[in-house]
């Protein structure tokens, strides 16, 4: 009877310009590759004191394609390991920012030829959610045949993609052309909220409407509701040949080719302690500390800082954490307002059943997960059907961290199967 109904933040049709965050004194760029300062993978290509220009491509290891694009001009001050959640590790390149900005012009030579090669070599790090899967199609068993541009935002209180749809329709249009040309994929669909239909149609992609109620904009539900294709449990959208790109990334792509420079400003929402959300624009690599000081937000011990939205984000442990190209939002919660989890057992109240968009028997699933029976959970209670929207934890009367249990179970089962495969 009291099933909560949470709607996405709807952007106004003439939104104000996002607030600009000043260039930081130090920026940190995260390269998606583990870094071990003592081991053999010691940096070969970059060392302390190296000068970098804005828009310059930085690689770290000789025999690796991974790179980042510097968002500032200055000198490298450190290269260090950096750890994310679920055991992911990165190499963090810190840059001390110089006073005068210099632009790196190497990319402008490639503007004439928008090939996949160019995009892969220069634009994998552009602001917005740009999946690498589109760039390396030869690694896939099923080729990508459809690209869905998310003109909607993944989580509540976020408007970054919607802002691009409204304000950057020309750049998106160019980006769509480039995507078509570079990938050879004709079937490009724009997923948008109804009130932005007209702006979305300017992109030249086919527009389809996403329901404004959370979690309709999650990829699995867009697949089901907009494309009429249900992703089998345990498979990803890419397995069915569908890739998802954020509208902001498509706009960045268009801008890169229009201007001959790689964009370095990322738009994201700052969600303050009182729950209000403001769209801002900052250079990739800006530490969150700078964003909080721009907004005069006091950060105290035991507060919670979240990258991403309230339902699907990730909490972080340091104010030095940098803005990344796919950071949609930064949320700060006061320690007095935190909804904490508990170790209470499931009381079988059934609130999670009607709210689950994947129709999982969460009450039974959590009983298996609590006692580490992950395989049984997957076999009998649809662990792999979960699309990780977090609504079950949101309504849980016992405040069980259900989503965390689910992600942990998937992670552990994934590790077991990897070990089994390598043993065979």
């Amino acid at each position, binding site marked *: 009877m009291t099933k909560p109904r949470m709607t996405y933040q709807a952007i106004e049709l003439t939104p104000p310009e996002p607030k600009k965050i000043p260039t930081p004194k130090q920026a940190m760029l995260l390269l998606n590759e583990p870094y071990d300062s003592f081991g053999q993978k010691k940096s070969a290509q970059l060392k302390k004191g190296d000068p970098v220009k804005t828009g310059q491509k930085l690689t770290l290891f000789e025999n690796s394609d991974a790179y980042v694009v510097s968002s500032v001009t200055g000198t490298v001050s450190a290269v260090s390991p950096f750890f994310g959640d679920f055991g992911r590790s990165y190499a963090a390149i810190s840059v001390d920012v110089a006073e005068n900005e210099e632009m790196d012009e190497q990319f402008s030579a490639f503007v004439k030829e928008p090939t996949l090669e160019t995009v892969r070599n220069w634009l994998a790090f552009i602001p917005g959610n740009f999946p690498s899967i589109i760039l390396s199609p030869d690694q896939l068993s099923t080729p990508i045949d459809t690209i869905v541009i998310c003109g909607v935002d993944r989580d509540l209180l976020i408007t970054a993609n919607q802002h691009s749809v409204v304000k950057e329709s020309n750049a998106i249009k160019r980006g769509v052309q480039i995507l078509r040309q570079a990938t050879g994929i004709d079937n490009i669909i724009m997923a948008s909220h109804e009130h932005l239909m007209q702006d979305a149609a300017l992109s030249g992609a086919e527009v389809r409407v996403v329901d404004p109620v959370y979690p309709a904009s999650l990829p699995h539900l867009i697949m089901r509701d907009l494309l009429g294709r249900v992703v089998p449990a345990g498979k990803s959208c890419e397995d069915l040949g569908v890739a998802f790109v954020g509208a902001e990334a498509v706009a960045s792509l268009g801008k890169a080719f229009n201007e001959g420079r790689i964009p370095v400003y990322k738009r994201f929402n700052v969600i303050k302690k009182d729950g209000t959300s403001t769209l801002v624009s900052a250079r990739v690599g800006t530490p969150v500390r700078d964003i909080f000081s721009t907004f005069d937000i006091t950060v105290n011990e035991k507060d919670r800082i979240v990258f991403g939205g309230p339902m699907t984000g990730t*909490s*972080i442990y340091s104010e030095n954490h940098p803005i990344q190209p796919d950071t949609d939002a930064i949320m700060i919660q006061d320690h007095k307002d935190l909804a904490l989890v508990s170790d209470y057992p499931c009381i079988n109240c059934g609130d999670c059943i009607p709210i689950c968009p994947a*129709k999982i028997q969460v009450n039974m699933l959590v009983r298996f997960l609590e006692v580490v029976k992950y395989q049984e959970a997957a076999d009998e209670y649809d662990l792999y059907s979960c699309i990780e929207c977090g609504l079950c934890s949101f*309504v849980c*009367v016992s405040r069980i961290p259900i989503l965390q249990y689910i992600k942990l179970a998937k992670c552990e089962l994934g590790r077991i199967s990897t070990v089994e495969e390598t043993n065979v």
Partner: protein
Amino acid sequence: MFEQKKFTVSHAPFWHNGSSVSARSYNIILAALPAVLFGFFTYGMPAVSVVALSVSSAVAWELAYNKISKRSLSIGDGNAAMIGLLFAMLLPATSPWWLVVTGTFVAVIVGKQIYGGIGGNPFNPVLVGLAIVTLSWKDFFDFNEVLVNYDFSYPMAYPLASLKHFGVFAISDFKPAALLMGQQSGGIGAIFGLGLILGGIYLIIRGCIRWEISVSFLSGIWVTALLFNMADPAKYAGPAFHLLTGYTLIGAFYLATEDSSSPVNFIPMLIYGAFAGIMTILIRNIGAYVDGVVFAILIANLINPLVDKIRPKALGKVV
């Protein structure tokens, strides 16, 4: 580096709708209060003492078990107090103290704690307690006998007993409106139909109970009673009488809806509720007992794990 502030790091989601186990228990207690206060008003101090003893002994048993089993204290969640209150609501006001204390022992310890505590019990703890004491000391549950000293302006014969022993003509004195307003004999908190219905509606709106169970339970009673009544109006009472007497209304909104022992899927909830309703009337009309609610719900608890297997296909499930 070590002078850094320490932040709270946890997993998504970072919002919660604010519900909690204790709020749920206290809401149920709150919703039951009109019926309980009406019982106090009707039966006076004996009713107050039964309710007070029942709630306090239930909490005491839970506390004792927490201590003995060396587990964290769970009396703060209000569940034990709720069990004690609901148990007292089913008792006659003249119940002796040892009956109350024994009943709450069975309800809290045998009915709930030995299954692992809240959420683990396969049967409704209140009904386990009540079933044991009813079967053990059935004279104390003969409402005509134990409430003989109460004399009001309305008939004080226990309606269901009159129906069982004397047939339909004996219940012509009971008017539905009077029954609804609590002018009948019965358990302390089970007689005030209007209060129970309002409390039930409150719980449904607050999301503390599942409306599907209450509605299907009442529909099961209504349809079955109607069928019996149509078959032989001289022998079987009509549906309105069955809905407003005995433990029907407290069963529909407070007992059948107990979280742990009832299903959570839509169709299973309908089957479960309707099954309990049908069983209630079968026991009342052709069974040995005067009221069938207690055993009907316990039997429905028994089929709960099986019926709750009827579930929708999960997203992307490959059969």
